């Protein structure tokens, strides 16, 4: 079900104000620290034009610190109370299309055939995603080459095209249809034509030749064992920044917290496979003892192992890992320049 509409830019705030009556609304805001997705209380606070925010809205589905359960101990007896499942519906406005694609990749990891992360699943179900296409893609955006794009529709409920004074809006799902109100006006053919051209222009810019056709000539084991991996990791300082800004990554661990009065809780927090203790077994064995091992694991999980399992890259080409790497490692080049010898 696709239909379209037009929303004048000055009317966006009125539309968001209307939504605030029924939904929690999250939008990109300049918080003074950076562009962040935060809950808003006034439609006028939402930014309409912005570059790639440092963090995707991933944290609203897979929070940096996520309560799993609480416990209460009394005279030796322990009761376990699962974390409540939030029920209020919410709208995230201003999602970059590659970040919505990233959520589809997270779905493959968190909503599995044999086990479901019920907290994540509930947040996905109660959220409507409104995207704003990147008509001027960031210079590091290679989303088209990673299977997404500046106007990728998959995973979004609505997609906005910025046409200077107004937005051309594609309504992509029933969830999207539910939030259309009388601020929207019918679209005309010239809007559609402009949108097609805008998409085409943006897609031309969001490309980088990853040169992965060559990978098909080698087995996964051969790629894993290439001497190349012993060279390319050297600038890495194992800070984990690339993993924490990545919109598709779900590495995590849990922490137990003891509180007063016999109470306690278990919290899941983000983790990074770059950290030396990440894969250490309960008995102290580390299958990836060197930084070379851990760097290779991160890169190959994204571009080899996850695709083997699911058929898609574990990357949407947002470019954040490159932008935020303190030693300027360019993962596009690492992939494109793999030396098969």
């Amino acid at each position: 079900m696709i239909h379209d509409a037009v929303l004048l830019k000055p009317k966006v705030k009125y539309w968001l104000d209307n939504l605030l009556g029924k939904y929690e609304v999250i939008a990109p805001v300049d918080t003074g620290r950076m562009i962040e997705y935060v809950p808003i209380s006034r439609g006028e606070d939402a930014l309409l034009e912005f570059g790639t925010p440092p963090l995707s809205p991933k944290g609203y589905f897979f929070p940096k610190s996520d309560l799993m359960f609480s416990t209460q101990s009394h005279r030796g007896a322990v009761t376990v109370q699962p974390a409540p499942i939030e029920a209020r519906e919410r709208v995230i406005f201003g999602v970059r299309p590659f970040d919505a694609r990233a959520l589809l990749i997270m779905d493959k990891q968190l909503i599995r055939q044999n086990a479901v992360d019920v907290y994540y699943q509930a947040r996905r179900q109660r959220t409507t995603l409104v995207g704003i296409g990147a008509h001027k893609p960031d210079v590091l955006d290679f989303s088209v080459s990673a299977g997404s794009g500046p106007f990728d529709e998959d995973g979004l409920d609505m997609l906005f095209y910025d046409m200077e004074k107004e937005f051309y809006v594609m309504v992509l799902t029933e969830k999207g249809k539910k939030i259309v109100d009388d601020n929207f006006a019918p679209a005309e053919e010239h809007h559609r034509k402009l949108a097609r051209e805008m998409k085409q222009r943006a897609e031309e810019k969001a490309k980088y030749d990853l040169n992965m056709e060559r990978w098909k000539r080698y087995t996964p084991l051969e790629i894993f064992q290439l001497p190349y991996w012993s060279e390319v990791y050297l600038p890495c300082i194992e800070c984990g920044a690339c993993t924490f800004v990545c919109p598709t990554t779900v590495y995590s661990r849990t922490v137990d917290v003891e509180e007063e009065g016999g109470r306690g809780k278990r919290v899941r927090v983000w983790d990074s496979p770059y950290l030396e203790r990440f894969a250490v077994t309960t008995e102290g064995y580390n299958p990836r003892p060197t930084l070379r091992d851990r760097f290779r694991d991160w890169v190959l999980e994204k571009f080899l192992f996850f695709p083997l399992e699911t058929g898609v890259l574990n990357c949407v080409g947002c470019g954040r890992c490159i932008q935020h790497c303190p030693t300027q490692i360019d993962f596009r080049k690492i992939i494109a320049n793999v030396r098969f010898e």
Partner: protein
Amino acid sequence: MGALRRTNVFIPDVAVLEKKKQENAQMATFTFRFLDALLARSFDFLPGQLTLLSVFGVGEEAWFYTSSPTSRGMVDVTVSLNSRTGSYLALMERGQMVGLRGPSGMGLPLQLAKGRRVYLIAQNSGLVPLRSFANYAVDQPTEFERIIVMNLVDRESSLLFSDELFGVWMGHSIFEVYVMSQELEREREGLKRGDVNYLFETANPQPENSLAFVAGSPDFLHACVKHLVQRNFRDAHIFVFIPRKFSCGFGICGGCKLGERYVCVDGPVYSMTELRKLPPEF
């Protein structure tokens, strides 16, 4: 039995500590009973599967079930006392409560093993994941042609499950038990001085109608696989326990990943046929 039992996979079942037994200076076996009586009666797992054991307020770690799945009502879990959870469990009294999630992983190929000669080849704490299978065979001896335990330890004080090794298993008609210690002051009945080569020379494993289950340090695993292949065991009949971190226990946190495989979902036991295709990260 490969998937966790609950709808919300993060929630442990509360279990009561019934018994603890020090196995050696580093390891102890804890016996738990699920608080929920129905669960206690119905809970099932396969030898070689793991539980995610919570000491509430301290944390959660993965350990092998070490009792036989035939022992309904209670489960044994053998734990390193040097670990985070183990150091707290050591101080716990009978009646205190922990959390258990699981079972996690696929465990040993029990069906494939039926009617066969099964070699249980373990080094030091490698015997932990094999104890459940051995005690299952004690309870169901007609299911197997023969069980051959080949246990190598660094020193006598590293021995685990001595009562079973030198008692129940050694005395059972379908068992053969070979135990060697690399360092040993004085040999005695059932315990010889030896290394992995001498262990294989003495036990002399035969490939016909046989499976081998191997657990221990990475060096030990490599040495055993080499011996078994030299003795014409097929890759498909050699099963190896891969040391891997189990954290979430159902394939999302990434801690256990080996190539495209989630070891906590379809491991930690793999045939050599499978392992030869995967990154050699062990």
